């Protein structure tokens, strides 16, 4: 294989898409050709640059997409037999001890209504000063036609309220703190963290931000949590969490923010962390920041 043939195969070689024999021939050629080896290096750099241009969908975009999709699906015409059969199976499973359906189905509807109404009362005690508007969404969950021509429905109702209040009002803060832990919707978690971060001077809120930074599976939420913690970057608990994140978070964006915030105050306690980090970190920017900080503190890069 000559250089021209090898160079024409390098792009597919880098993607691992050559046939076995072709790959063997390229590797043999590379062993003896410095020019083609440097072409491989050049194209590898080019690949890395392209990797950096990849876009990650913001959490809020994904959340918006999901919400809209499910709303549109609810409006889709249902293929009667199939979809009703699920509820029939559910109803069959739920029927307690063979009690006739006409007895328990209206009772079930009443219970569902009571749960919906009661939970809204439990959630928000009546003392808050927030303004509110209410909307009730009804959804038919089970249909049973009767021989008489009448029909029985089990209706599930979701009561929605619009609350408007200040962040320091207890019901608002409590709901936001609960929303931060809502596993079903990262978009809501991002927005909750964003709102709480604007008024993070209570210990409860700071703890929620620290927990989100340590544990939230979504990188967008973790980035927002770091942003909210910026005013408290010098507190020991925040620094401990940032250190933990720097060493363990799998997202380079989060680690970048963590190293920037941690390096606002260069203290000897981070020397060991930075040395440990340099042994495993592959992100160029984080490595550079760590080296700069170690040099500024007259510390070596390696451990002995």
């Amino acid at each position, binding site marked *: 294989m000559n250089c021209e043939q090898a160079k024409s195969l390098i*792009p*597919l070689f880098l*993607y691992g*898409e050559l046939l076995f024999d072709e790959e063997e021939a390229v590797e043999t050629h590379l062993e003896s050709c410095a020019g083609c080896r440097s072409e491989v290096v*050049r*194209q590898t*750099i*080019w*690949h890395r*640059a*392209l990797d*950096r*241009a*990849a*876009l*990650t*969908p*913001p959490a809020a*975009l*994904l959340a*918006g*997409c*999901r919400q*809209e*999709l*499910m709303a*549109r*699906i*609810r409006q*889709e015409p*249902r*293929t009667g037999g*199939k*979809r*009703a*059969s*699920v509820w029939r199976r559910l109803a069959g499973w739920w029927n307690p001890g063979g009690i006739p359906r006409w007895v328990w189905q209206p009772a079930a509807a009443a219970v569902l209504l009571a749960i919906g109404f009661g939970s809204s009362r439990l959630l928000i005690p009546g003392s808050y000063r927030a303004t509110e508007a209410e909307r009730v969404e009804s959804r038919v969950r089970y249909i049973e036609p009767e021989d008489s021509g009448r029909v029985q429905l089990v209706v599930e109702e979701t009561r929605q309220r619009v609350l408007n209040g200040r962040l320091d009002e207890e019901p608002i803060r409590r709901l936001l703190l609960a929303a931060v832990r809502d596993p079903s919707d990262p978009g809501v978690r991002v927005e909750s963290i964003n709102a709480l971060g604007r008024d993070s001077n209570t210990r409860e809120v700071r703890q929620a931000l620290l927990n989100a930074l340590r544990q939230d599976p979504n990188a967008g939420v973790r980035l927002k949590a770091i942003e909210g913690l910026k005013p408290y970057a010098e507190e020991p608990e925040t620094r401990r969490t940032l250190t933990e994140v720097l060493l363990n978070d799998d997202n380079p*964006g989060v680690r*970048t*923010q963590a190293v*920037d915030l941690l390096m606002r105050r260069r203290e000897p306690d981070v020397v060991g962390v930075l040395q440990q980090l340099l042994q495993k970190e592959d992100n160029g*920017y984080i490595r550079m920041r760590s080296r700069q900080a170690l040099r500024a503190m007259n510390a070596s890069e390696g451990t002995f």
Partner: protein
Amino acid sequence: MEEAALIRAAQAGDDSAFEELVHLHDQNVLRLSLNLLRSPEDAYDVYQEAFLRVYRNLDQFRFDCSFQTWLYRIVSNLCLDQLRKRKVRREEQSHTAEGAGGWDRFDGLAEERAEGDPQRRLLSLQLRDRIEGALAGLTPRERLVFELRHYQGLRLRAIGDQLGTTEEAAKNCLFRATGKMRAALGDFL
């Protein structure tokens, strides 16, 4: 619940199983359409249309290919349509500054990471513009194959299956795409 069980439950009319199935794949779908179209609005539309088509036609899915292949085929066709429409519009409007809007929404993240280092930020912005320009120079099919191989990590055989073509044709397409990209970025890197 495993994917096959979710599909069967969704085919039987269980909407919560369908929702779970969507959540298994939708981040990749959104990433693919966002990276291909470089516009959150267009990616949003493709997401909605793709999953609505899946919902409406799930009864016809017979497990003769993987669900992901079936889903990506739908998403790929929608993205190709978008890219082709855009290409026609661009040709009609000749040299307008189309395409810049999509990037601006992402400036925040990129710049935040490079804060405090103006030189790095400038280089990053220049590189981003060059890559954007290079991607715009690909045909819609080249763009799609490049995206699926480079960013989504699919093998050429899977890409061929998905696009209804052979592995060899997908390989040629990738080869042309990487050649054009290298030519466009060569003096910058």
